Each structure stands twice: as structure tokens, then as C-alpha cells.
């Protein structure tokens, strides 16, 4: 696995005497919009433009955001372009094989520097005037450089670098806060639940080619929250898919539909839920037959194999989600308060034989790709929440997150605070953390003490 480290680039974003007026960053106190103890959410958090702008500053500019999988980078110069919030990002491997991430915007006049989705390069050259940056983000070439003032220092005009890039078992995350709590600390107990997908194979995981991308109407939190907390919707929303997948064509047996399970919610807003009924499995048959469950029990522990390794759901706060059952890992990119873009990858264990990888891939895209028989019904729900959210009265009526209030406890088996499978506990934890971050100044708001 490649290294990811923290960097302090010499590039300087605050050049000269530039500063921004306070009017640009008026913050709203959101504490009365989220009642995470009483389980009520004000609908304005999905629709207000000012709240959306504050999220860019206080959620996306300071949280660990998923960038890419380590298997996307094999050689120096391999790159992938993505977003952190609405900020465009180049992720690349430098000459020392370190994964680094830069703002995908030329330092000169701000053009999107790299317009390819992925590839291999030696330099990132702007097609406007030709400023050219190397894999370490340094400005290497400025056409007609002699015409710039004497104090023009190329070192200061390197790419703006994401100061904190760290990976956890193949998943690369970036954080604009150079003093952020480390990724592993931030994940905390969530690592146990992630390991049930990421650590089945001593060789680790890899992604198969291509990222499925699609757009839909709906605030990004609707999807992130659902993947954190919502097993409840499965039997209703996905009734048609469950019927098609069951051998009888009539849907799962009663004990599976009413399966017991647990739901984990973290103080950092992460969440994961999973059934614990031994027959509650919806993975592709070749994948199921491939696994040596005895060995997995030894590697991950009985509880992980019986719980979070089965068909569950999870969100790493704020906008990375995954499904252990089919290796769907995805980001909900915010595109304005009313719109999101979904980017979904196919994750497989490295040691799987090719035909098992292929079974996982097909199952992934047929169930949770943009044509997937589960995905379509989720998207319909989110877009139908958003489409009617702007009415004054509609927007004023709070939404209900009260299932399982008070049920959160340490159950002695699963790490952290867990609730029942059918519960809104992780949703309440998600919004509790969201609200706290929204009301706490971020690194870029700290004033220099003279």
C-alpha cells in the first residue's frame, strides 16, 4: 500500500493583503433546527442556501472526506479527479509514491487544471496560459516569466495542497484542516464495522475499473443519513427487489423480514446497521460460496461475521457510504442544497478469483448501480422529499427521527453505543454531530493572535 502523509506545501494561498469581508461568512446558529435528543429535524437544513454555504465551510472544509481507493494509483503520475464538497480536487501519486491531493484550479486565473477523470501524467499544465505544475504541486513553468515582478516567487504559486491525506485499509481520505484529529482517531469504533468489509482478506481490497456517476434531486444529507441509520425502509422501499431476489418470488421469510440486528452511531456522526439473523444474506452466491467463514470468524471475530459482514449499511460522516454485501462504496457529492451527485465504485477482495470478483461486480451494478433494482427506489424517495420541500408550510413541519429513542447502549458485544437494527439512533448521532460542527468555528475562522 502506498504511503499517505501530511504535507506542508510552500504554496501560499494568502498572498498580499487580501482578506474577505465578514458579510461573506455570516453563520447561522442551527441548534434550534436539530433536536437530536427528541428526534426532530427542521426541513430547512435540506433547503436553505445559507445553511448549504455554511456546510461548505464548517462541514466539508474540516471533515475527513473520501477521495479514492489506493488501488487507483500504481505508478507516479497516476491521477484521479474528484471533489471535496464543491471544491475540485486532483489526487495523484508523486515521484516518491506518496498520495497527494491538490485543488484542481490553476493558481494563475483559476481554470480547472485537469479536465480528465483519471489517467497518468507527468505534469499538470493549464490550457489557458500554460502554467505548469509537477506531481509535487510545484509551479515548474511560467511562459514569459521574465515579465513578472522581481519578487514573483514561483514557490509561493504552487498548487494549493490538501494538507492532510490519510488512508484506512485502502480508503484514502483528505482533510483541509492540518490540525485535524487523525483519520483513525476520528473513525474510532467505526473501524470495527468497516473492517468487516475492508479486512476480510489479508491482501486487502481493490476497486474494479470505473466509477459510476449520476445526479439526482435531493440534498446530500438525505442519502448520507439513510445509509447511516435506515434499515427501516428496506421492506417497503425495496419490496419489489426483495421479491425478485427471493427464490419463491414472494419475498423473504417472516423471520428475515423482521430480522434482529444492531445499529451503531458514533459521536463523530458515523453510523452502521446490520441484521444478525444467520440467514439474512443477500450477497451473490459465488461470493458467498467463496468465503471460508471459519477463517473469517478467526480473523474478524464471530460477532463481526454474524453482524456487520452481512447485508448492512454504513456512512462515514459526512458523505461517504458503503454496503458490505456487494462492495458498493460511494460518495454523495453536494451540488447545491437541492442536488447531489452519486459516485459509486465496485470494491472486491484482492485475493478473490476473477470469477468471484466478477460476480460481485455484476451483483453490485445490477442492484446498486444507476440501473440497479434497489438504487432506483432509493433515488425516487430522496427526490420526492426534495421536490416538495420548498413550500412554506411544508418546510416548517419537522421530520421524525424518534424510533428507538433511549435504546442506545453498550451491549457488550458490538463496540460503542448501539441500538436496535430498526432505529433512528445513528441518524440522531449523525445530525447531533452535524449540528455541533455547524456551530463550531473551523480552522479557517481562527483569528491569528498578535
Amino acid at each position, binding site marked *: 500500500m502506498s504511503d499517505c502523509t501530511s504535507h506542508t506545501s510552500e504554496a501560499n494561498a494568502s498572498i498580499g493583503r487580501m482578506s474577505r469581508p465578514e458579510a461573506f461568512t455570516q453563520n447561522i446558529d442551527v441548534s434550534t433546527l436539530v433536536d437530536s435528543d427528541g428526534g426532530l429535524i427542521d426541513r430547512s437544513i435540506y433547503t436553505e442556501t445559507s445553511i448549504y454555504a455554511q456546510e461548505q465551510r464548517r462541514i466539508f472544509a474540516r471533515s475527513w472526506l473520501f477521495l479514492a481507493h489506493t488501488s487507483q494509483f500504481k505508478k507516479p503520475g497516476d491521477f484521479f479527479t474528484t471533489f471535496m464538497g464543491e471544491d475540485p480536487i486532483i489526487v495523484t501519486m508523486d515521484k516518491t509514491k506518496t498520495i497527494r491531493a491538490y485543488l484542481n484550479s490553476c493558481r494563475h486565473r483559476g481554470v480547472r487544471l485537469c479536465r480528465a477523470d483519471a489517467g497518468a501524467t*507527468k*505534469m499538470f*499544465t493549464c490550457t489557458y496560459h*500554460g502554467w*505548469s505544475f509537477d506531481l509535487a504541486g510545484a509551479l*515548474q*513553468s511560467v*511562459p514569459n516569466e521574465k515579465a513578472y515582478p522581481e519578487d514573483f516567487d514561483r514557490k509561493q504559486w504552487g498548487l494549493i495542497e490538501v494538507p492532510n491525506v490519510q488512508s484506512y485499509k485502502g480508503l484514502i481520505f483528505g482533510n483541509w484542516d492540518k490540525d485535524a484529529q487523525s483519520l483513525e482517531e476520528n473513525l474510532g469504533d467505526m473501524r470495527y464495522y468497516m473492517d468487516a468489509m475492508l479486512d476480510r482478506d489479508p491482501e486487502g481490497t481493490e476497486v474494479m475499473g470505473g466509477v459510476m456517476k449520476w445526479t439526482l434531486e435531493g440534498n446530500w444529507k438525505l442519502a448520507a443519513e439513510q445509509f447511516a441509520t435506515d434499515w427501516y425502509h428496506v421492506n417497503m422501499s425495496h419490496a419489489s427487489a426483495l421479491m425478485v431476489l427471493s427464490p419463491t418470488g414472494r419475498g423473504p421469510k417472516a423471520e428475515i423480514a423482521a430480522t434482529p440486528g444492531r445499529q451503531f452511531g458514533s459521536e463523530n456522526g458515523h453510523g452502521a446497521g446490520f441484521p444478525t439473523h444467520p440467514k439474512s444474506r443477500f450477497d451473490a452466491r459465488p461470493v458467498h460460496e467463496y468465503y471460508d467463514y471459519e477463517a473469517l470468524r478467526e480473523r474478524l471475530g464471530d460477532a463481526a461475521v454474524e453482524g456487520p459482514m452481512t447485508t448492512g449499511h454504513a456512512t462515514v460522516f459526512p458523505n461517504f457510504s458503503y454496503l458490505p454485501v456487494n462492495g458498493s462504496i460511494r460518495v454523495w457529492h453536494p451540488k447545491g442544497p437541492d442536488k447531489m451527485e452519486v459516485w459509486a465504485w465496485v470494491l472486491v477482495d484482492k485475493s478473490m478469483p476473477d470469477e468471484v470478483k466478477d460476480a460481485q461486480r455484476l451483483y453490485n451494478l445490477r442492484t446498486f448501480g444507476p440501473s440497479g433494482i434497489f438504487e432506483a427506489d432509493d433515488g425516487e424517495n430522496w427526490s420526492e422529499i426534495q421536490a416538495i420541500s420548498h413550500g412554506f408550510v411544508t418546510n416548517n413541519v419537522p421530520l421524525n427521527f424518534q424510533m428507538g429513542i433511549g435504546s442506545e447502549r453498550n451491549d457488550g458485544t458490538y463496540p460503542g453505543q448501539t441500538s436496535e437494527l430498526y432505529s433512528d439512533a445513528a441518524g440522531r448521532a449523525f445530525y447531533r454531530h452535524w449540528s455541533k460542527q455547524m456551530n463550531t468555528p473551523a480552522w479557517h475562522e481562527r483569528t491569528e493572535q498578535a
Partner: protein
Amino acid sequence: MINPINIGSIDDIDEGEAKVIPSDETGTGEDIAVFHAEDGNFYALNDNCTHETASLADGWIEGTEVECPIHAAKFCLKKGTALCMPATQDARTHKVEVSGNDLLLYPNVPAEPVEA
């Protein structure tokens, strides 16, 4: 007669790759890039792009052309001709000879004229 420099074995430069001979070895005051082109032959040009500062050895070799890694100017490896903007000046060629397994570079001796 100028004496060539033995710059190593032909196996040192894979097809599609290039090697820089530093100026203190070339004696010309400039670095020279030796390219193993996709026609199987070896060619040499001054390493520095004629447009801005960039190493052509770091560029992309396609057929018998090299594309500058910075601003995408292309040069003919055989004749040094600047093939497209933003380069307007040709690159200087140097003769390369294969002798057995060895590569011999003749700095400042232009490559022999070839048919286009």
C-alpha cells in the same frame, strides 16, 4: 573527426523511454536527450525544449516524435523539426550510432539526413 561518447548499452533505454546525458559529459554546454523511438531506432536532441524550460526526455514518445511534458509542443526525433505550437524553433539533433550493444553519441554532429 569528433570522438563519440559511449553512453552505455542499448538495453539501458527501453523503447518509448529516453536518457539524459548531462552537459558536463556532452561537452556542448547543454544536456542531450537520447530517445529510443517506437521505430526501434535511437535519436538524440538537445534535452531542453525550445519553447520554455522543460526536459524533452521527460516527454511522451509517440512513433518518431516527442511531445514536451509541459506545454505539449512536438518535435520530430529524426530531424528536430518543431511540429506544432507553442514551439516555433527546431530542436538541435545529434548523431547516435549503435555499435554492437553500445550506444555512441556524437555531440554537435547533426543527425544524418533521413527521408521524411
